[in-house]
């Protein structure tokens, strides 16, 4: 397999844009990534689009507005991990020598979320029989289970939100850009005990894009320090999720990249709900589960700490339109590795891990290195 480099990234500011068609988000993000790379749309040879809640063939619609150049367009939907899946497919397009320059684009319009289920009578009956089951309820139950097992005070979950909202306040593309105190988070409305509104990702719209290419193309363009994709791992869920798919995927990714948890300078992960950060600290091998709360309390996972997590605000603050979310992680990690992350910059960052979960049981882990 050939080596793969990220040569251009772009995104829109995530938020509520009820009057803006989703394709505009994709076009804006793509043009931003092209400009970042120093390329024209005509240079793109393959397109992968991760999208949620926007109807059929969204990538083709974005491509049509950029110019009908006749390139193959592949659309993927993997819930929260749609953008990460598109990125993985673009990675393989280069690694497997299908082409030399490929783009992954993500779009999502969750401001009008409401689908998701099959909606058959049998599914409606099953849902009524077992009670309301929004994602937040599942994670709230995981939070209670964690508290019972490790004795963690739920204020530690809230502190994760404080951290990520602070990171988001430094990111001009974040949906939320306010700093919230622990008191603010705990005073926000309870969505599903013990999780408060400010501990949950918002719904929103947006787009993000990443262009990948061979190292030769990256060298020819020479616009940025090289950012290499050194691992792309994918795990599906097992019954009872044991071992957890994040464990499976991250172990594979570490082996591919030839690194371990101690080599990471930063992590972007699926923090749709604050409890998840603590779970994934352990599943990524950063610490033992019973040590996870210390990382939050001691500030180890905040900017300036030992290993910052969700440096752009994460899903909780940067936002989570699903389709582009994984590509926003690529955007942030690429900027960090180039040294272009402004007030969020991690000094000397060389290695970043990106983890994304998708409903229904997918987990993708990528590692990017300078």
């Amino acid at each position, binding site marked *: 397999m050939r080596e793969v480099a990220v040569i251009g990234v772009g995104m829109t500011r995530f938020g509520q844009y009820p009057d803006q068609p989703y394709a505009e988000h994709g076009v804006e993000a793509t043009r931003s990534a092209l400009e970042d790379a120093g390329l024209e749309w005509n240079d793109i040879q393959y397109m992968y689009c991760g999208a949620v809640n926007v109807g059929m063939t969204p990538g083709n619609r974005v491509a049509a507005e950029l110019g009908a150049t006749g390139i193959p367009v592949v659309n993927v939907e993997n819930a929260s991990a749609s953008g990460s899946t598109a990125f993985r497919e673009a990675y393989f397009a280069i690694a497997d020598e299908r082409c030399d320059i490929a783009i992954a684009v993500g779009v999502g319009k969750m401001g009008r979320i409401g689908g998701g289920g099959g909606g058959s009578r049998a599914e409606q009956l099953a849902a009524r029989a077992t009670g309301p089951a929004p994602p937040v309820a599942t994670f709230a139950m995981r939070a*209670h289970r964690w508290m019972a097992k490790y004795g963690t005070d739920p204020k530690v979950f809230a502190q994760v939100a404080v951290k990520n909202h602070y990171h988001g306040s430094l990111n001009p593309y974040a949906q939320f850009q306010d700093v919230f105190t622990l008191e603010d988070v705990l005073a926000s409305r309870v969505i599903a005990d013990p999780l408060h509104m400010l501990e949950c990702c918002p719904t929103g719209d947006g787009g993000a894009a990443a262009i990948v290419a061979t190292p030769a193309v990256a060298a020819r363009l020479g616009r940025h320090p090289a950012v290499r994709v050194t691992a792309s791992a994918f795990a599906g869920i097992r019954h009872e999720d044991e071992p957890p798919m994040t464990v499976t995927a991250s172990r594979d990714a570490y082996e591919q990249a030839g690194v371990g948890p101690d080599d990471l300078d930063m992590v972007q992960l699926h923090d749709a709900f604050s409890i998840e950060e603590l779970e994934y600290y352990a599943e990524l091998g950063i610490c033992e589960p019973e040590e996870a709360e210390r990382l939050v309390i001691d500030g180890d996972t905040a900017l300036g700490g030992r290993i910052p997590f969700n440096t752009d605000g994460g899903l909780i603050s940067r936002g989570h339109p699903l389709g582009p979310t994984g590509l926003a992680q690529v955007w942030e990690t690429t900027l960090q590795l180039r040294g272009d992350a402004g007030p969020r910059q991690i000094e000397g960052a060389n290695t970043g891990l990106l983890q994304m979960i998708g409903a229904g049981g997918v987990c993708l882990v990528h590692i990017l290195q300078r």
Partner: protein
Amino acid sequence: MSPDQRPDLIIAEWMEYAGGSELLRLLASRCEDCETRVFPRAATCPSCSGRNTVDTALGPDAEFYSFTVMPARGDGEPTVVGQARFEGGAVVRGYIDADEDAIPSIGEAVEVVPFVLPAAGDLEAATTFAFRRKEQAGA
């Protein structure tokens, strides 16, 4: 609500009364190859992909596994949902038959009991299952 006033089971293939009208068993499958239990019944084992599953039942006894309370929005009641773990390892999600200030502790013994869902809009009243602290059962 007395047993004879209780509406029909919401999904008859999911549950049956256990030795009377105050307790329920959940109708599940057991994989004869790997012993995994799965609810509701399934022809294929979700753990080993085997197709050698047989009918079994879960409960009424279980261990309380987790829960959450979703506060009411508007004039409604808070929603209390949770999970129980049955012998053999199956974790099942459902309602909790308890006020929000009397929820069982995680790890506590619970039982599966009938739980009436009132009519709402186009939906008729129906009886489903819920988890209730064991010492309250039959009270």
